[in-house]
Each structure stands twice: as C-alpha cells, then as structure tokens.
C-alpha cells in the first residue's frame, strides 16, 4: 500500500478504522439515499468512537459517500432516520478528506518538496483528478472544480514537468467497467489520447477506480477503439513516494497493468546527470 507508507513518511498518522465496511459507493445511492448514508455513516460512527478527528480515504467515491452522510446528519430529521438504521449512533462531529487534500493542506507543498530525496526530474506528467474529487464545489470544498491544481503544484514542487492537461476532470466511465464496458473504453480512450497528445510520460491519478479504468483497460481500448494507447497510470502517492526515496516496488509500481519502466528509466537517467 503506497498511501500508508507515504503518509507515514510525511508525518501523517494514519489509524485504520476498526472493522470498516464498504460505503456502497455508486450502487447504493441508486437504490436509496438513506441506505447510502447509513452504510457510510457506520464507518464514520466507528471512527468517531475511536476519537479520530478526520477520516481519510484514498477513494473519492467513499469521500462523496462520507460527505453525503455528513450532510444528512446536519438535518435533524435525517439524522434520526440514519440512526434508526445504525447500531452505533452517528453524531456527525468528524470530518472527511481525501489523502490528497491532507497532503496539500496539512503537510503543504513546500514541506513535501523539502523531504524529497529524489526529485521527479525528467518526468512529464499529466495530472488527472477525475470527476468527483473537486466537484460539485459545494460538496467537495476542495481545489477548483474546473481547473484543479493541487496535484499539479505537488508534482511541480517535486521537480516534474506538468503541462496543461485539458481533461483533468473529464469522466473516465466510473463504475461502468463491468456493466457497460464500452462506455468506459470510449471515455477512458479520450483521456489517454489527450494525455499522449500533450506528450505526457504518464497519467497521475488520485482515485483507484480511475486507475483501474485507465490502466487495466488499455489493451481493450487499443483493440476496440482503434487508438493505440500505452501510458502508465500512477497514483499521486506513488510519485510522492518515489520522490521521498521509496523504491518502485515499495510503492507498488509492480502492480500496474501498464508497466512504468520506461518512465522510470528516463527518470533514473535524468537523475544521474
């Protein structure tokens, strides 16, 4: 798990929420908003009981679920309904943030850069934020909805080259990988193509679902959409990890479908210079 190691190295203390359960993400809210809220609220209630101030999640879908539950709990009527479903009462006195937000706001770009042992020089990276990390702004309360820049700033500070990437928030097809694969292929193809067009060596993501869609399916995209794509898709935490001095294996770069070896090689050469 790259996130945990990186967080620790940045001085963020992560405690696993005991016995966490899946928040239900997209499927739950198409069934019922109350059920959706309750599944997320269960985790938050446990975290509250553990005395934690913030729940951090690497997954924007979970984040949305948490934020929705937190929104619901502000309303007295809805809070009552929620708690009728839960074993452990949920107070709503906790906040929820993405790991990216914690790194950007609490650690700070400069502090991250200062800890970098191996700057990301020579890498040309296209940051891809996905559709729900910063939108809608009212709920996300983080970064800019149209032109988010937090990953850009972190990567730049770590020495990478970050070109203007117009599709930062275009949708990759989200949860449709199984039920509507062709949609994911079409949408992900556009994003990958644009990244290649601007000469990126890799896409940088902050969401496991985006990562899956964009990384795993490149073979399918190439054969179905008739566009040849071959672009590693890395988590922002993995890149921060590399800069902090972790080995590619330590940050889990061996687990990707599209090998980042070319990128790594380019980087190592640049570092040697």
């Amino acid at each position, binding site marked *: 798990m790259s996130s945990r190691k990186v967080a620790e190295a940045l001085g963020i203390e992560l405690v696993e929420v005991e016995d966490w359960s899946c928040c239900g993400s997209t499927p739950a809210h198409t069934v019922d908003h109350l059920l959706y809220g309750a599944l997320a609220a269960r985790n938050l209630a446990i975290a509250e009981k553990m005395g934690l101030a913030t729940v951090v999640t690497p997954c924007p879908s979970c984040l949305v679920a948490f934020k929705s539950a937190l929104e619901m709990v502000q309303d007295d009527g809805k809070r009552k309904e929620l708690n009728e479903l839960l074993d452990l009462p949920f107070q709503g006195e906790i906040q929820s943030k993405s790991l990216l937000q914690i790194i950007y706001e609490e650690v700070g770009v400069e502090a991250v850069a200062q800890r970098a042992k191996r700057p990301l020089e020579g890498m040309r990276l296209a940051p891809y934020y996905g559709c729900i990390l910063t939108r809608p702004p009212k709920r996300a309360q983080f970064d*800019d909805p149209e*032109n988010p820049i937090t990953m850009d700033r972190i990567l730049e500070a770590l020495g990478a080259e970050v070109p203007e990437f*117009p*599709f930062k928030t275009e949708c990759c097809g989200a949860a449709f990988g199984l039920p509507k694969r062709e949609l994911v292929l079409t949408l992900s193809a556009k994003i990958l193509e644009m990244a290649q067009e601007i000469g990126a060596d890799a896409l940088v993501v902050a969401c496991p679902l985006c990562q899956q869609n964009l990384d795993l399916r490149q073979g399918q995209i190439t054969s179905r959409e008739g566009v040849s794509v071959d672009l590693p898709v890395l988590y922002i935490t993995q890149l921060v990890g590399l800069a902090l001095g972790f080995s590619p294996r330590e940050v889990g770069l061996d687990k990707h479908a599209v090998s980042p070896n070319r990128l790594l090689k380019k980087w190592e050469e640049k570092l040697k210079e």
Partner: protein
Amino acid sequence: MRIGVFVCHCGTNIDGTVDSHQVAEEAKKFPHVVYATDYLYTCSEPGQQEIQQAVGEHDLDGVVVAACSPRMHENTFRRTIERAGLNRYMFEMANIREHCSWIGEDREANTHKAIELVRMAVAKVANHVHLHPSYFEVNKRVLVIGAGVAGMQAALDCADGGLDVVLVEKKSSIGGRMAQLDKTFPTVDCSICILGPKMVDVGQHEKIKLCTYSEIEDISGYVGNYTVNIRRKATYVDWGKCTGCGLCMEKCPSKKAYDYHNEGIADTTAINISFPQAIPKKATIDPEYCRQFTKGKCGVCAKVCPLGAIDYEMEDEIVAEEVGAIIVATGYGLLNMEELGEYGAGRYPDVITGIQYERFLNASGPTQGHVVRPSDGEEPKRVVFISCAGSRDASLDRPYCSNFCCMYIAKQAILTRDHIPDSEVYVFYMDTRSPSKGYEEFIRRAQEEYGVQYVRGRVSRIYPKGKRMVVRGADTLLGTQVEVETDLVVLATAATCAPEAEELAEKLRISYDEYGFYMESHPKLRPVETNTSGVFLAGACQGPKDIPAAVGQGSAAASKVLSLFSKDQLESDPQIAQVMELRCVGCLKCADTCPFQAIEEKELPDGRVVGHVIETVCQGCGLCTSICPSGAIQLQQCTDNQLIAEVEALCQAWRERSSG
C-alpha cells in the same frame, strides 16, 4: 377631531382578498371617525373627488385612506385633501395592499388585519397637527458624476439649459465605454465619429467645468445646497502646460504599462494619453509603471517635454464645489472573465471578452482594425461567440440579463464577416433579446445576409487542441451535443455595477440593489429619480442598458434638474424635528447624535441653553427623538405620542379580540 376613512378596492387587487366594505363598516366604530366608505379606485379622479366632497360635507379635519403603499400615493392624496382645504399633513395611509391583500390568501385574516391597520392609522391622525413648509434658496449648479455618454448628455442638456455644471470623471478622459467601441448597433455607425463631436462640445462648453481623473471624496448637505469635495488625483503632469503633443509617450522607456483603454490587449507607456481622441488631451503618469516611481530614476519625460509640464512631486488635491443637484452616471463594469473557469477564461489567450474584441475591430485600436488571434497574431478563420457569459446565471449570483450583449454579438459577428470574408462565425445563445426599434431585424440580418451560425444552446467547456480551441456545447433545438474547433472565442461577459458603486452610493445616501446597481425611486413612474431628493440617475449605473437608453436617461435626468431649478426657492419638508424648549434640559445629546449636524446650541433670553434644529438641514430621521432624555425634541409626524398611539390602538384591538 373628525376623521374620514376611505377604503380602496383597487379593483380586485385589494377587494379580492380583503372585504373592503367590511373594513369601512368597522372603521365607523373607531374613535374620531365620523365618516367611512369604500371605493373601487380611490386614486382615480372620481375617487379623489369623492374625498374632497366628503371633507366638505362631513366637516372632516383628518383623512385616512386605506389602499396601497404610502410610497405609492401618499403625495397624491395629500394634494387631494389640500384641494379640499385641509392641511395636507392631516393625512395617513393604511397599507392594506402591499402589506395585506397581496401577501395573504385568507380573506378573513386579511380583512381583520386591514381593520387593525386602519385603526392604527386613525389613531395616528388623531395626533396629527398642521404642518407648514418653509422655503429656502437653491444653488442652481449641478454636479454630474461619470462622463460616459449618459453623463455627457446630461451635462450638455443642463448646460444648454443655462445651468453651471461640474462634471467629474474618474478616468483621464471623458467618453466612457462608448469611446472604446468600434461601431454601434443597429446602424453600425462608427462610435467615436458620433461620440467625438459630443466630447468636444463638452470639453468646450463654457458652462461645463470638467474634472477628469477625479473622484468624489465626500458629499454633505441636502437638495438645493450640497457641498461636494472632489479629489483631483495626481497626474504628475501640469495640465495647464501640457499640450498633448505626445513627445513624452514616444520617449518613455517603460513600455509595458497596462493599457486600460485597450483592455490589456496591448501595452502602453507609463506616461500616456489614453487614446488619440481623448478629451482633455493631456498626458498622465501611471506611477505603478513609471521608473521614476518604481526605481527612483529615469526623468526622461521631464527632459523631453518641451513645455516642462512634468511634475513628479504632484499630490492629490481636494477641491470643494457647491451644487444644488446631482446626476449620477457612473455606468457599468464587466465581469472578471476568470470567474468562468469552464471556459478557461484568463488561462487560454484565445478566449477573450467582447470589449477586448471591440478593440481588435477598432481601426484606431492596437491592431488597426485587423482581427488577430492573441496567441500568435494570426487572422482567425473561425470565431465563436458565447452569449450570457456570467449573465442569467444564478450560480454566479447574477440572474439578470445584461441587456445589450445579444445586440453587440450580432454587431461583432457582422463586423467579423466584413473584416474577414472567408471566416466562419458561430454564436451560442439561449434566446436573442432584441426588443427595440430595428434590433430584431438586425439580428436577422446577421443570420440571413451574413450567414452567421446561431446555435441555440449553452457552451459547457472550452479546451485547447493544438493551435485551436474546441468549444463543446449543445444544440438544444436538435437535442444534441455539438463541438466546433475554432481560432478565437469571444465571451459576452456580464455587465456588473461600476467598480466601487456601493461606496459612492453610501456617500450619496442612495440605495442600490443586491448587484450594486442604483435604485430608482419607482421602476416605472420615477425611473431617473432616487429616493434622496436632488439626486438623479442616468445610464447604466441604474442597470445595464444600451446607448440610446443611456442617452435618453441622461436627457431625462437633466430635465428633472431643470424643472427642479425652475423655481427660485424650494419647499422644505416640514416633517422635521422640533425642540420644545420648555422641556429641553440642554444636554445636547441630540446635537451629538444628529448625522447631519442639524442641531445647534441656542441661548434663550433667560440664559438657558437649549437645542435648536436648523430647519433646512434636518432630514427628518428621528435619531434625536429617540435619544433625547426628556422627550423634548420631537420628529413631526412621527412623534412619541403618535407612535405610542399606533401601538396602543393595535394593542387595544388585540385585547378586544381576545376578550371576544
């Protein structure tokens, strides 16, 4: 006292949800009421005559009309009873329309409320006394703030009518936005060609004193007698000497100063004359860019100026002017396009605003009228216009329509096709708004004669693709997503209030709406008046409007001032504070509180000191009345007794209600 009550139906406006007849019947039971009736339209001529008649027949000495808001017809009815021989202040209105019939659907509750409102009004009138206005001299000079086309028109009309005018303009030249435009719709005549002569007239008019590069510092006084302090900002050039020869501009080494007139599409020099037709044509140094100021050395302009006009030591100067009326014509601002993140505005050089495009189109603009793409200076072959960029947008807190952009888009689209015959022009729009004479025909011409593609749908996103931009929108008529690759995108950014409009309003004590546009006294019937007497509005400061409308309002405001000044003396409102000297203990708390310094110390023959209200200065706010420890100073028509009478009448009604 003998009070008559007249309850209005206002057609069905009141009687629809209030039983006006029953209100009149109940009113007959109130103390002092000797006559009560209801009438279909009380403000109509027969309605007013009925009041006049009743005053005579029933020997009334006080009148209550229960009808619309007093803000609507108080003056109408005051005049009515005056014609019947009563003192016009022996009158009160009960607002049973705006505050009652229009806001509740329950007829019983409304009727009941109306009865209580009438009862309160009756109780107040019973405490009224005769009031008589006094008269004061008027200073027949007028201040016009803002020298756009509206302010210029107002100034010229006033000056031609014989008034002395002080015209204050923030920028170094008069002309306003219109001076930036290329051509004007719907006739497509050259903007500066029609504005230029007017600017010269203003500049040369012996009755107009021009204060450009100036702002209002503060204003005190009241209608007929205002004192205005004007800050004349330092230009660092002695305008008495400068001839506008432009030599300094040629030699100034600081060539990257922001060019306001060209909306930043070109740079200018630190010392500059904002545009060739500027009036007055004088140079100004922008200290933000001048090396003498930023680096402490240069002095080139001082060396080259043949007239020795440069003065780096110059400081702002405050000049006081005495005037009797004020016309505000400060125009509008434009939305900062960076608020439109989805269009990449501010990030992508080839996404520009409509006013920037005017400068590209303009033959005296930085490109001599050649339209080019800012990123590489090449001629665009495709131009996309996006209407309502930030207007009609509740998500940006700007739900209103900016009024003139539909029309100028059509104009710019036509001009684009004129300038670049092989160009393709697209307009994304939601509706086209073209309600004035010749306007709709103009938009049709853009489509029919000039082949401009109008696409009904909003644009969601713009992103760069190679050297071009991709505009992704919808065609809602077809129900489909559309995309077009283009060289240039022009945003019709929303018209906003002028910068610092609110601050100026507070100095003038006029109201503004939630967007910062100034509030007229009545949206239909008093469109250029404000609620502060002596202050008038003209042009886009009241709300976005085009040139014909702005000019019309300029003339209208001028005629209001001319008619105000047609009398040598003005009537003062007698609804002001009065000190009962017997009760006054001379603490002068009232004088400390009065925001208008309307209270002075007065020594009585017996040596006692009391407060004294200066009649013409008092504005009738009543602050003094609520601060006075001995109840000695009373605001006429709103005395303690009158307010208490209202409260008591209401509470009496409540008590009767609960005891059944």
